[in-house]
């Protein structure tokens, strides 16, 4: 008997398939055991696929598909925890709220947000931005004024551009004075789609 015959007891292609199923069950057990620090999922949307990262504190990250998945996961591993797993169960509530929003069934997100990836300045900018309701817009200068730095419109733009949770923290509602769109880290096409969805743009 040739000991290499043992390989046929567990052919590599079968191991690939059965380990995929076993791995899918892992995240539920990890979450039950309190071992899942960051749960990942992908949500389809009019903006393309969105990668979301949910921690026990709430939604920490939303990335458009123009960002590399490796970069996003690497940042999460460095800044939050390397215990990152895909999990349909843990992300279910956030996936549902996002789907409702894109279906026009929701104008406000009710679940918690984990703001650990926001610097203190970005938090202040986002707090002001979050006061702008669905369907309305403001300007970089107005946000700068409300946080007490009326001449910091450019810094506000930079802060909005670093938003780790776009869509949910509605940086798309901030435009340039005079009505032009200004910038958007996800590209102006996405900003236009979001503002149209909210009825804030008349095209």
């Amino acid at each position, binding site marked *: 008997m040739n000991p290499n015959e*043992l390989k046929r007891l567990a052919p590599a292609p079968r191991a690939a398939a059965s*380990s995929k199923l076993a791995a899918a069950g892992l995240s539920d057990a990890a979450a039950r055991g309190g071992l899942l620090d960051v749960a990942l999922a992908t949500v389809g949307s009019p903006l393309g696929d969105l990668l979301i990262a949910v921690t026990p504190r709430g939604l920490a990250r939303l990335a458009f598909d123009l960002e590399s998945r490796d970069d996003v996961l690497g940042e999460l591993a460095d800044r939050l925890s390397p215990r990152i797993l895909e999990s349909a169960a843990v992300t279910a509530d956030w996936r549902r709220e996002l789907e409702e929003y894109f279906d026009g069934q929701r104008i406000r997100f009710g679940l918690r947000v984990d703001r650990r990836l926001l610097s203190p300045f970005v938090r202040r900018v986002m707090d002001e931005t979050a006061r702008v309701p669905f369907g309305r817009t403001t300007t970089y200068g107005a946000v700068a004024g409300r946080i007490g730095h009326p001449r910091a419109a450019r810094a506000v733009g930079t802060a909005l551009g670093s938003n780790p949770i776009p869509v949910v923290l509605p940086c798309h509602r901030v435009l340039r004075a005079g009505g032009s769109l200004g910038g958007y880290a996800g590209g102006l096409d996405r900003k236009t789609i979001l503002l149209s969805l909210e009825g804030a743009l008349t095209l």
Partner: protein
Amino acid sequence: METSVPPFQDFLEANRAMVHRFLTVAVGPLEADDCFQETFLSALKAYPRLANGDRLDRWVLRIASRKAIDHHRITGRRAVPTDRLPERPATDAEPSGGDDPLWTAVRNLPPRQRVAVVHRHVLDRSYEEIAELMGTSQDAARASVHQGTKRLRELMR
């Protein structure tokens, strides 16, 4: 240069097929999923304390080897002396693989021999690696592989 620890999802993707393949032969197909989950949960528990992302395949296979041997110890019918190779065969909870004589032969190997043989002949690991994976000397690893292989040959005759 030490490499940083990758996101667990990437680590899982890179190693899941190898670990499952190892466990399928080391504990049997029916028990492999449970041992797989225990292995990766143990890894997940220890993961934030890992300082170095090098050779994580060896790290997780070492955990899987322990789980496989523990599994046989727990499901074994008799107490096993811890300081020497057990003489009794490893026991799968239920016979797996039907009447395949090769499965029957594998099931009749003592746990440590079975694990060593799988590392060597299913995963093609070197004796140096097998020693590290099983926490023994290289000579002991070589002896386990050779005794296990010899026994398989006898059982298959």
